[in-house]
């Protein structure tokens, strides 16, 4: 397990470079209540283990003989549904606009966003038969989050850095963002969704998501 001396990867357990000390102290204070009062169901797996197990589970699906492409995609979707915290992601992605949605709209958004993201995750990974994922390190973030750094080996995206940000909720570490080569999915979705919300409001956003998910359900020839 080698960490490149030149890349932006930081050794595990150290805060990101360039964090001013007061901020670091503040983030430690924010994390403290979580330490003082452990959640009712103690977490047995660390964030790093969650990512390692997720990677192993995906590789297992990809290497299982005799699965059709649709079956693989379906199983990877199942893994995604279990490991991502879609509700937190939905709220992060919509940010201030979250409150513009009614309770029903919020519920529907979480559902549609879950389908949208799991499909995206499944259809991408389903193609990466020859690749392996190496967990390279983890480091703490403000608010008690943890970033787990991984690198992909093999395939057309060989050497790509994929960071997972995890947050603990109800005693479980779950993924709240995927950062591919420095591009955060949450940030990217937020930009896209904000543009749609500005033009057409919540109903338009939900309509577009439903439309995308319907397209995804229609089997199309992806080669």
């Amino acid at each position: 397990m080698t960490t490149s001396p030149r890349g932006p990867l930081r050794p595990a357990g150290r805060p990101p470079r360039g964090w001013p000390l007061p901020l670091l102290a503040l983030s430690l204070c924010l994390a403290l209540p979580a330490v003082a009062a452990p959640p009712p169901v103690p977490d047995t797996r660390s964030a790093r283990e969650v990512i390692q197990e997720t990677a192993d589970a995906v590789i297992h699906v990809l290497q299982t003989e005799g699965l059709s492409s649709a079956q693989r995609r379906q199983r990877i979707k199942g893994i995604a549904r279990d490991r991502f915290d879609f509700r937190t992601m939905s709220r992060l992605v919509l940010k201030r606009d979250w409150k513009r949605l009614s309770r029903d709209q919020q519920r529907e958004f979480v559902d549609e966003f879950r389908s949208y993201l799991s499909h995206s995750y499944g259809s991408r990974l389903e193609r990466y038969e020859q690749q392996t994922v190496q967990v390279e390190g983890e480091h703490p973030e403000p608010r008690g989050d943890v970033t787990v750094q991984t690198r992909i080996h093999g395939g057309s995206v060989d050497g790509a850095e994929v960071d997972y940000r995890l947050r603990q909720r109800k005693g479980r570490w779950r993924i709240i963002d995927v950062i591919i080569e420095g591009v955060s999915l949450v940030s990217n979705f937020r930009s896209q969704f904000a543009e749609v919300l500005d033009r057409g409001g919540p109903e338009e956003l939900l309509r577009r998501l439903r439309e995308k998910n319907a397209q995804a359900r229609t089997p199309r020839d992806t080669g």
Partner: protein
Amino acid sequence: MRGPAALGLALLVLAGCATQRGPDPWEHANRRVFAFNEGFDRWVMDPLADAWNFLLPHPVETGIRNAMDNLAMPRIFLNHVLQGRPLDAGADVARFLLNSTFGYGGLFDVASDVGLPNDRADFGQTLGAWGVPPGPFLTFPILGPFSLRDLGGFGVDAASQPLSYLLPAAVAGTGITVVRVVNLRAYYDAEIDANRAEALDYYVFVRDAYLQLRRRKVREACPRRHPELQNDLYQDLYELDDDDDQP
């Protein structure tokens, strides 16, 4: 070959002036150029990429890509020096020597295998490290997304390519650029198709991904000098009001 450099410097001055109105003040015009570029991609680049993928197996495309990266060494070296990263500049030379010899003229990236990964550097990144803000986002015909700063950097980098001086510049330079771009487009054909199919708004997808990638390049070049680059995006990205945390 002074043209691109002069254009680059002119754009830099502009970038310094126009930073106040959000990242995309020219969105309307940008979207029109983007639509044109999408048409160009659909009718020219995509068929070329398909033909390229049909003719060449993937390892050959990887080899071409490695060779092109190897040729870019002088640019990367120069920018590492300008960014005050002598160790990385030294690593660029070591990479070049290793790949040019044991890597059969750059076709194989043996340097990455021995712990010297490719670390692309460009003049837009150097300018960012020097404190030049990205300026407004713009979409350039054919060339695609740029910040004003990075378009200027692109011009300077193009002018610093030694190949354009060694060989009949117009022909060789253009030929190599076409091969490089078609090869890259073919290499990432599947990824591009997936992104385009999935995005709710592909223009915004490209803009946001581009801006995030460029921020990361600048962060890599100056981790300490610009704490605001570290924080302003990611600070607020993961904040939530905890008042309605429902199952």
